[in-house]
Every structure is written in C-alpha cells, then in structure tokens.
C-alpha cells in the first residue's frame, strides 16, 4: 500500500514537523509529540516488526533522561556529545535487558520486561546520589545554538524536529534493510527463521539494542525539554504509556507510532484538564481499542485509504498487524 511505502512515510514525518506549529499553541506539547513519536516507533520496532511486546521501554527512556541530567549539570560535556552518549548507553542497557528477557518466551518474556522496569526504577530510587531520588535532577539546560540557549520552546522544537526527522529516516532505513526484513521473518515464524539458519536470539537482541538507543536518545531530549530528569521517567507508568501509545497507533508502519503518540498526548492533555481522574477514561479507551480497533489508528487510516482508492489491501512485505501471538509459538 502506497501509504506504507518508506518515501511516503518519510514525507508524512516531514509534513508533521512542519505542520504541528500551525495546530498547536504549545511548543512544549509539540516537542513532546515528536519525542514520544521516536520512543513509540522504537517500541514498534520490537512489537510490530519483531513480535516482542516490551513492558520495559521506560528503562531506556529514563536512562537517557538521567544521562542528560547528570552529564549536563555536572560535567562540561556539550549536548552534541551527550546525545550520542545517551544512545550508546541505551544500546548497552537494552542489550542487557533484552538479552536476559528473551531467555523466556511469550508472556514470561513480557513479565520479565515489566519486572526489569521495576528493577531499574528501584535502582534509580535507591542510588539517589546519582539520580536525585524522588526529586530527580533539576535544572537540566537546553542546548546552545550559535552561543544562544534555546530557551524559547519553539526554537527547541526546531532542534527536536531535526533530530526527529533524522532518527525517523534512520529507522525507516533499518526496517527496509536485510536486517529489518529478517526481524519480520522472526515475528512471522520464529521456528522457521531458525531452521533456515538465522540465529534468532541475536536478531532479537539487536532489535532491542536499536530500540534502546533511540529511546534513550529521546529520553535525553525530553529531559532538556522539561528541564528535569524526573524519577517518573523511569517508572512503570512510563513503560505502560509507551506500550499503550504503540498499540493505539497500530504497528503496520512506523508512522503509526507518531499517530499513536500524538493521539495519546493530545487526549491526555484535553481530558486531564477536564477531570484529574481521566486515566479511568483511558482504561475504557484501551478496552474499546482491543475490541474494535485491533489494528490501531493506522489500521483505520489504511482502511479509509483503501476505500478511497477502491483497492483491496494487497499482501506486503510490511508488518501487517499486531496479531503476533508469541504465546503460541513459545510452546
């Protein structure tokens, strides 16, 4: 389908970055959408492409956030160097967490990722000298550009926008590569992927590594956005909302994730200003999505597109739906 082709997806991404300022009044909100867009796309690389449902994405997000906090407030390292450091640290931790979690399959795997997210939460909580504990790390500065700090949210938005486009382009390349296609094979039929010679574990861990790099990178951008590296960025709740955004968006393309992140953040913003207990409504939304919108918002877009072009949805070498039941394969 045309709308799932990489160039089209890239076009959507550029368009999104250019269009958000016209629709949103808050530059903070717009930047947040782009940052979570990256995070959710990274989670989608695991869920949609590899068939791994990770309940531990908050670990990597928090890692990046803390790294930004520590490096920028305690050392003289510039942002331009800190961001790659965040990606590297995210890779290392994701390799570790992923490598251990994939020792079990199906739902046990999910449980492990959740338990690891608790492990890292308590690590951050316990070693408060490094992380600031409950208070987090305060006064994380924004990057400098031409000797001027990007204090204005919209100028920081431009900075995030450039990062977002680059990261997204890289991820599109990854999903189109031999590597990405092999991940799809692992998701489709793990037993066969192993039988034709792929060391499945290595590919799963590599998927984790990329996912961790992107998520930590985004976590660092987020700490600079809000000026804090808070304990909440590594909490269970962060992992939970990343997963929720991923599923709501749908997993048949990477841009679906940007849609999922936007929808969630805008809904959260609107509902929470109306009723502080809006999470109750979110709970109901999740049930509705599971019952009626299993391919997520992007699935809806695909359907509308197909109706408009009078095309049947042809089979593609794209991740086709969320329906990757690793439980069944695990037995």
């Amino acid at each position, binding site marked *: 389908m045309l709308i799932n082709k990489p160039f089209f997806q890239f076009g959507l991404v550029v368009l999104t970055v250019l269009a958000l300022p016209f629709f949103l009044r808050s530059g903070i909100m717009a930047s947040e959408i782009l940052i979570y867009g990256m995070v959710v796309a990274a989670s989608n690389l695991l869920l949609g492409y590899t068939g791994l449902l990770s309940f531990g994405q908050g670990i990597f997000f928090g890692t990046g956030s803390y790294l930004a906090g520590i490096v920028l407030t305690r050392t003289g390292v510039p942002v331009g160097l800190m961001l790659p450091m965040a990606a590297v640290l995210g890779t290392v931790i994701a390799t570790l967490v992923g490598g251990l979690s994939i020792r079990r399959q199906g739902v046990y795997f999910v449980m492990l990722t959740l338990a690891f997210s608790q492990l890292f939460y308590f690590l951050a909580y316990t070693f408060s000298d490094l992380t600031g504990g409950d208070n987090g790390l305060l006064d994380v500065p924004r990057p400098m550009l031409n000797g001027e700090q990007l204090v204005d949210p919209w100028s920081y938005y431009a900075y995030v926008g450039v990062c977002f486009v680059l990261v997204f382009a890289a991820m599109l*390349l990854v999903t189109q590569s*031999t590597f990405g*296609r092999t991940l799809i094979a692992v998701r489709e*039929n793990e037993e066969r992927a192993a*039988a034709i010679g*792929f060391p499945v574990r*290595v590919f799963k861990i590599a998927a984790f590594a990329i996912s961790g790099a992107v998520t930590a990178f985004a976590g660092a951008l987020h700490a600079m956005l809000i000026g804090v590296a808070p304990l909440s960025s590594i909490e269970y709740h962060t992992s939970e909302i990343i997963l929720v955004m991923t599923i709501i968006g749908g997993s048949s393309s990477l841009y679906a994730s940007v849609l999922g992140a936007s929808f969630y953040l805008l809904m959260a913003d609107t509902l929470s200003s109306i009723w502080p207990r809006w999470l109750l409504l979110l709970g109901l939304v999740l049930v509705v999505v599971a019952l009626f919108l299993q391919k997520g918002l992007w699935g809806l877009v695909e359907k509308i597109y197909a109706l408009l072009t009078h095309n049947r949805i042809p089979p593609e070498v794209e991740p086709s739906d969320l329906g990757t039941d690793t439980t069944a394969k695990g037995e």
Partner: protein
Amino acid sequence: MTQTASTTDALVTKGLGVSYNKFVALADVDLNIRENSVHSIIGPNGAGKTTLFHALTGRVRPSSGKITLGGRDITNLSDNERVRRGIARSFQVTSLFPDLSVHENLRLAAQGRTPWQALAMWRRAESNHEAMATVDEMLARLSLTRVATRAAGELAHGQQRRLEVGMAMAARPRVILMDEPTSGMGIDDIETMKDLIQGLASDHTVLFIEHNMGIVMNISDTVTVLRLGRKLVEGPPAMVRDDPEVKKAYLGNMITGDIA
C-alpha cells in the same frame, strides 16, 4: 546390513541416541548417507523418525552418539550453525512465513546461509545478488514463478508443500532433510513432488521421511526402516520390501508397490 563408511558419505551417525527423561526415543542408530543419494527413512508411527530428524537438524541434543557431516563432527552445533555447514530441512507441517510473498520466503531462506550479513542495518535486502539469483532459480524449479508476489499463506496446498521443500533448497545445502514432503497431497501434486525430489539428488544428498511407499520404493537408493527407536533393516528398496521383519513391523500389506 550397514554400509561401510566411505569417503563419499555426506552424513554419518554413530550410536545416535535420544532420550526424554526415562523414555528412549532413539537408540544406537548408525547411518551412512552417501553423497548425492536419495535415502528414505520409514517405519510405523512412534518409530523415532521425527526424533531422528530433530537430532540431525540440531533441534534436540542427542543423549549419546555422534553426528558427522562430511567428516566433521557437528554433534554439538546449534540448529542455525548446522544450516551454515550445509544441512537444511523441510517440515512435515508446512511452516512458512504466511504473510510474506513467495519471493520473500525464498529470499530469506537463501539469506539464511549467510545470516550475519543480514545484521547489516544499512544494506537493502535486494542488494544480495547471490540470494536474489537463487530465488529466481528456485521459483523456476518449483514452478512458482507465476505466484512469486503472492503471500505464501494464500497458495494452494500443493504449492505450499513445494515452497516448503524450496525453503530447504534455497540454502543450497549439502544434505537436505525432508519430513514427509508429500503429506496431505493429491495425486497430481505427488507426481510433481516425486520428480522434484528425484532431481534434487544431482546437487544434494537427500534424506527423507515418507509414508507414501510408492514414492519410497520408486526413488530411493537406500531405505532405512526404524522400529521402536532402533534400526530394523537397511538396504535397497527391493530388499527392504521383501524383508519378513519389515512386513511384520508394518502388519500386513502397507508396503506394496510400484507407484502411487
């Protein structure tokens, strides 16, 4: 009736045994599969045929014995390492990538020989020209060129079975293991499959499990009969067919004849 080991043996097992807890699924199996021969494994249900396959492909670890491929010990290699050494398999229950195209299925299988290359996150899948050439060749050999862009899950059963075998062929293995290649097939499809298997022996060594005695007796160079996890008889089809032990094992006239 075992054949003596020779330099032309592709795959050899010595005293191969597999036990699950106390249950002995396979015991003391010596096999010498000659290079470029068609070798079939038959036996009643529960004889240990599939367990033998699992041990050969590396899916289960043997509890005793040794497996060598072209003279090199592969007993302790994992399943995917064995593919790189030249063992590929097809499954009894069709196991494809159902949502991916036929072409992509074969491309993956061809890429599986050099899996580390596939870790390259910047290289396009289509840039592996060798794999792409293999795919085209396989499509032609399997008569699947016409449906190359269709999703594997949408193919007719006979086509899926051919693709299943093609997945093993695409790895260009030295030894190709097939678990009941004709399972669930109609008569016309079986003929095509028979020709396909026979043709394989020119480039590969073929070892297959089969229930269709017509095929077994028709195209095998050697037949090994398993019973209760042990080797009962081994030899050329004519000899195996007339063996009284085999007849007893099969309780009657299941081994009849000439063609299906």
